[in-house]
């Protein structure tokens, strides 16, 4: 192993990166773009859902109920209609996620002491949203109901009995229930996958394609020196992007950062070794830029996106898929990221994620080293 030869390869690689606007774009612009895209674009929070109302009663009481809906941040009363078809059309068109129908005898039956029912028509195309909507609707109506009960008791000078059981909720880790806090840390794993696997698989396949690899391997430089020299600049760029992304997450999206920054760097370094080795390995096998980039996308980016727990909770996947996620390095890295950012889990308690990640890093680095030979066959 000659440090000078390694350095010669690394210097060349840096010059090429700096001169190639496409790779510069991927290194500098892509991380920021992905952060913005996922930070703003993917919003799992349900707020201000459009609701159409058909108030057949038109009384003081029915208006009161609707004010309760209006007051909730989850609903926006988009329009009040005066016939049933207008309501169903709005649901069909997607202008409304929910339609509320208040019966003509609403106030009358209330004054008689009830009970009275309010109809809610819910667009359940997206079952998750529908479930959440129904929950919120029940909560709003429940609140309105108990208001009436309390008023009724007061009128009769009766003692107001507090509910025997109530829930005292405390949200931990993501106190404001912001989905960006859940998503943004995981974007780091996506960025690393692209930088690591995609870029490196291209850079080595390019050498085979252009014939420069033949010239390179005719010199005394060793296979290990070529690999390390080519990967080192991407490692540095990857770490640079980790810091950039972390800063954006913390200072732009105000995602809490409670763990150790050092642990973030160490685990990111391990994940980078994983993806860089994988990228190198792919390009040794593929030897064409196109094939290499396709394989890289398929085996790193997509799993990191879908199966790492970045967007979709692993616990809710079918059991078979849950097992598959165990062989995905991204799963462990995403888990570490979320714990470091939101929970501030001490490093010592991250071993269940850190150990598998380290094993992956070691095994894949060894695999990449062994796969590359200084021969043309």
């Amino acid at each position, binding site marked *: 192993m000659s440090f000078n030869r390694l350095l010669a*390869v690394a210097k060349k690689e840096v010059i090429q990166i700096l001169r190639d606007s496409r790779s510069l774009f991927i290194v500098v612009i892509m991380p920021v773009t992905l952060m913005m895209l996922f930070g703003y674009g993917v919003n799992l929070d349900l707020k201000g859902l459009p609701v159409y109302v058909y108030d057949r009663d038109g009384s003081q009481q029915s208006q009161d109920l609707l004010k309760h809906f209006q007051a909730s941040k989850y609903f926006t009363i988009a329009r009040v209609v005066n016939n049933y078809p207008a309501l169903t059309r709005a649901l069909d068109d997607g202008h409304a996620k929910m339609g509320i129908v208040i019966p003509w005898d609403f106030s009358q039956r209330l004054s008689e002491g009830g009970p009275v029912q309010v109809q809610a028509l819910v667009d359940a195309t997206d079952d998750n949203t529908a479930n959440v909507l129904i929950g919120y609707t029940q909560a709003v109506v429940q609140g309105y109901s108990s208001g009436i009960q309390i008023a009724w008791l007061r009128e009769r000078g009766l003692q107001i009995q507090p509910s025997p059981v109530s829930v005292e909720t405390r949200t931990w880790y993501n106190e404001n229930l912001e989905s960006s806090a859940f998503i943004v840390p995981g974007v780091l794993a996506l960025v690393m996958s692209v930088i690591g696997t995609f870029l490196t698989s291209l850079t080595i396949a390019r050498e085979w394609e252009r*014939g420069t690899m033949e010239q390179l*391997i005719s010199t005394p430089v060793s296979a290990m020196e070529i690999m390390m020299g080519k990967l080192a600049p991407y490692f540095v760029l990857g770490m640079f992007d980790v810091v950039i992304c972390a800063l954006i997450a913390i200072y732009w999206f105000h995602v809490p950062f409670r763990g150790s920054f050092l642990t973030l760097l160490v685990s990111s370094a391990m994940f980078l070794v994983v993806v860089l080795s994988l990228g190198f390995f792919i390009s040794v096998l593929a030897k064409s830029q196109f094939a290499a980039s396709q394989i890289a996308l398929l085996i790193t980016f997509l799993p990191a996106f879908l199966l790492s727990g970045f967007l979709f909770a692993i616990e809710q996947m079918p059991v078979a898929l849950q097992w598959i996620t165990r062989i995905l390095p991204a799963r462990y890295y995403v888990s570490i990221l979320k714990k470091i950012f939101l929970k501030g889990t001490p490093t010592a308690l991250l071993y269940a994620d850190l150990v598998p990640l380290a094993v992956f890093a070691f095994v894949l680095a060894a695999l990449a080293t062994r796969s590359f030979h200084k021969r*043309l066959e």
Partner: protein
Amino acid sequence: MPELDNSVVVENLCKRFGGFVAVDRINLEIPKGEVFGFLGPNGAGKSTTIRMLCGLLKPTSGRASVAGYDVGREPEAVRQNIGYMSQKFSLYNDLKVIENLRLFAGLYSVSSNVLRERIDWALAMANLKGQENLITGTLPGGWKQRLALGCAVLHKPPILFLDEPTSGVDPISRRQFWDLIHHMAEEGVTVFVTTHYMEEAEYCNRLALIFRGRIVALGTPSELKRGSMNGELLLVACEPLGNAVEVLQSAPGVLDAAVFGNALHLVVPDAVAAIPQIEMYLKQHGIAVGGIEKIRPTLEDVFVSVTTGRDATGEMKP
């Protein structure tokens, strides 16, 4: 490095790709300081041989040593002692001239105290002084080839392997390039060069003609021209050429007939005796004869002569 008379020794070297035999039991000995030419058509096995000698391909059987090191077992020791220019231009097009030179100086571990001097020397040799900051991809073909040679000799290797170094380069640049090769050889560098340009082969000290993986002739250019023909060569000017070739191919005493430019080349056992016979024979067949004379064969004649007697497997016909 052990002191040797021969820079390259090849014994029964073979390379098979699946069922295809690319290089078939070749034997060579190349002394130090020789410009050795490897001449043959595309696909004859030139590049495969050179790649085996540079340790880039593993021989299927046989052995070869370069600078005293076995190419199969000690490829790294071989690489320390050679400079290689592959057939396709393979420096980095997006690097500047000086950056390519620095890269290869680094890869060959040229020590920092002679680095400047070596790079200056390579630039001067390649006639690229003052062009250090040009992007390599923008250089004309001839300049690129000289730069590639410059990069391959930064570590002053005792042996150079050049695989079709002048293909796609204009004739003047080609001439300059050969001057460089001879300059290297004068300094004691052994040069192993492949080409399919017949006129270039004349610049070599010694030549091997390779055809379908086999060496079909070996010697100095003049030895080849003298010894490898099966007979003597006649230049026949006549009209019409097409008929004349057909007629002469079946004529008694004619070993071979082929069109060369606007005349015919005939191979006959004895030129002096054949001239009147051929003239008569052509006139009998109604072909107008402009003149017949004995000529010295070119390498192309030699090449045609040694390869036409062989069938597809490269074996001599019975």
